[in-house]
């Protein structure tokens, strides 16, 4: 573990920001936090999931998300709450494959948002880390969010991400030590994913009081690092609140819920609920 001295990454605003960091900085230039929306590829099926991601980017007349966190469904998603589990498990049952993420990347890029991928590590490991990085970058992807890969085990990924110019978004948590916050921020490229609560994904009634504290610790220990806050944001008001102290607001379960509701209603391709939530969130990050 390195010594606990604040990161002064000179290129944080430049090379260190990576593709996705630059997108956040663009939002910052508009005086607002960036909005990151999570959707799993393959739910309710691959094609509809691509439509849903397009709807994330352009929900209607107003603005959409800045970045899409494309989730890769996995059999053993230990950081996911029930909503994402249901969507992911259903997608797997319906045959989604790792390679489908590449189509999703293209769709998101075409729709004007920055494509990231959120994936448990075994899927990348199995694909081959370098091969995945290569294909992902080639499809237009910006980087990976890795919920079960910390910098400690990331040697191969550091090399591959450098090689293929991909962002590395690692997670920090309220329980992270100073040393680890610094080291993780140093290992990231793009931004740092701050998990607002101790717990799994899922929309919560109230935003966490731990989130502002964690962001404050990050600001202090790694002042030049961009910070996205995830876990628990469910509506525009919460997005506005989080956007007031974070550089990016990440929303997942709240976007999937209307899709699950559509499926339950027998109209899985109906994205109107999703569009409404996105519109509310996009307005939220702009209202702060």
């Amino acid at each position: 573990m390195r010594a606990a001295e604040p990161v002064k990454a000179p290129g944080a605003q430049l090379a260190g920001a990576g593709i996705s960091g630059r997108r956040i900085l663009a939002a910052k230039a508009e005086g607002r936090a960036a909005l990151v929306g999570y959707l799993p590829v393959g739910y309710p099926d691959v094609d509809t999931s691509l439509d849903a991601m397009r709807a994330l980017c352009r929900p209607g007349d107003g603005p959409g998300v800045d970045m899409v966190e494309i989730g890769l469904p996995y059999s053993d998603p230990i950081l996911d709450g029930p909503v994402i589990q249901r969507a992911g498990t259903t997608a797997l049952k319906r045959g989604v494959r790792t390679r489908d993420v590449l189509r999703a990347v293209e769709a998101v890029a075409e729709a004007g948002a920055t494509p990231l991928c959120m994936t448990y590590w075994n899927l990348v490991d199995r694909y081959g880390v370098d091969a995945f990085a290569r294909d992902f970058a080639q499809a237009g992807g910006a980087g990976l969010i890795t919920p079960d890969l910390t910098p400690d085990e990331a040697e191969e990924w550091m090399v591959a991400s450098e090689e293929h110019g991909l962002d590395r978004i690692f997670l920090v948590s309220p329980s992270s030590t100073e040393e680890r916050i610094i080291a993780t921020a140093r290992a990231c490229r793009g931004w740092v994913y701050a998990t607002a609560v101790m717990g799994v994904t899922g929309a919560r009634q109230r935003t966490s009081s731990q989130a502002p504290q964690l962001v404050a610790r990050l600001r202090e220990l790694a002042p030049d690092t961009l910070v996205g806050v995830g876990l628990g944001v469910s509506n525009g008001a919460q997005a506005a609140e989080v956007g007031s102290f974070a550089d990016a607001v990440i929303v997942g379960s709240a976007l999937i819920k209307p899709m699950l509701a559509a499926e339950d209603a027998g109209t899985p391709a109906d994205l109107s609920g999703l569009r409404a939530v996105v519109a509310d969130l996009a307005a939220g990050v702009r209202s702060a």
Partner: protein
Amino acid sequence: GHYGIFGGQYVPEALNAALTQLDREFDLAMADPAFVAELNRLRVEYSGRPTPITELPRLSALAGNARIVVKREDLNHTGSHKINNVLGQALLSKRMGKSRVIAETGAGQHGVATATAAALLGLECRVYMGKVDTDRQALNVARMQLLGAEVIAVESGSATLKDSMNEAMRDWVASVDDTHYLIGTVAGPHPFPRMVKEFQRVISTEARAQLLERYGELPYAVAACVGGGSNAMGMFADFIDDPEVKLYGFEAEGDGIPTGRHAASITGGSIGVLHGMRTYVLQDEDGQTVESHSISAGLDYPGVGPEHAWLAASGRGTYEPVTDAEAMEAFKLITQTEGIMPAIESAHGIAGAIRLGRRLAEEQPDLSPLICVCLSGRGDKDVASALKWFDLDGTPDETVGGF
């Protein structure tokens, strides 16, 4: 925290602090004579250690020239080696000031053991168990409840052991402040594989001394069944540095590896990341975990402890698969020749030892190999499975006195 390329700590950052604390506290505890003395006291006075070694002459007669000796972990309190680990971790939980333990369980053995240790030490206890398992093992659910534990059925994924581990991890991410996740085998993220090995080491420490005392020699081989691999690691630990002692691990081959319905992660799996560790995993082309299959609930797991992966890859250990049919034949043989009904898990080890003995009799007819098998647990819990397998239904052989 690595064994060659295996092991590691593939977990959410949220757990890092707890794992780091655990790693440190474990080392401090094991260096603290008071902790070691208390653990030893519980082993002796509560669990009934040392467990004996038993030579099986009537069974050995069916295994070439081998002399098969079993290490009797079935005689432990709660009926298997699982108690060795839970006593250690539960004491450690108290030492860390954590008042609550959570555990995953397959058929219920580790859950029962954890609930037992929690009752003994006054800890709150919650056990996650796949819905498929709670349905077919309702008696074990109730047993844990009788012990004061809360049992949560897990419906996600395949609703079996691996999913109960996922759910326990999810609980732990949210409760890590006051909660210890008491993993039941030498798997999971560092330091679990190391810690569980150390708590199970007592098996081989005792067995090695007992064998030397009774036979004046080290055994030709030590053997054990391997699911996650905790009884095997306990049986191997003190022999790893005896190069002349061969280490045999017997995996559950279910219906046979070619059928795809098995649980032999080393023999029939591939390298991947699961439950926080890099190891051999049963997975599909994309890396999605594949469901394992074994008649033995305790071996029915699609991964294996990372040190076993390393022992296999390095050649120090030999890992062979044993089918359901071979295991059940061994179950019957040891039951009927020695009056010892083993857990079906342990029957895999017995089956492997018999096969090894027969093979050695052909290959090296002058050898009389002493083989010590870890009899990891008793078979009481498996009577229903055995009945089904042998097509018995509990009907008496005859009825008299009726009119």
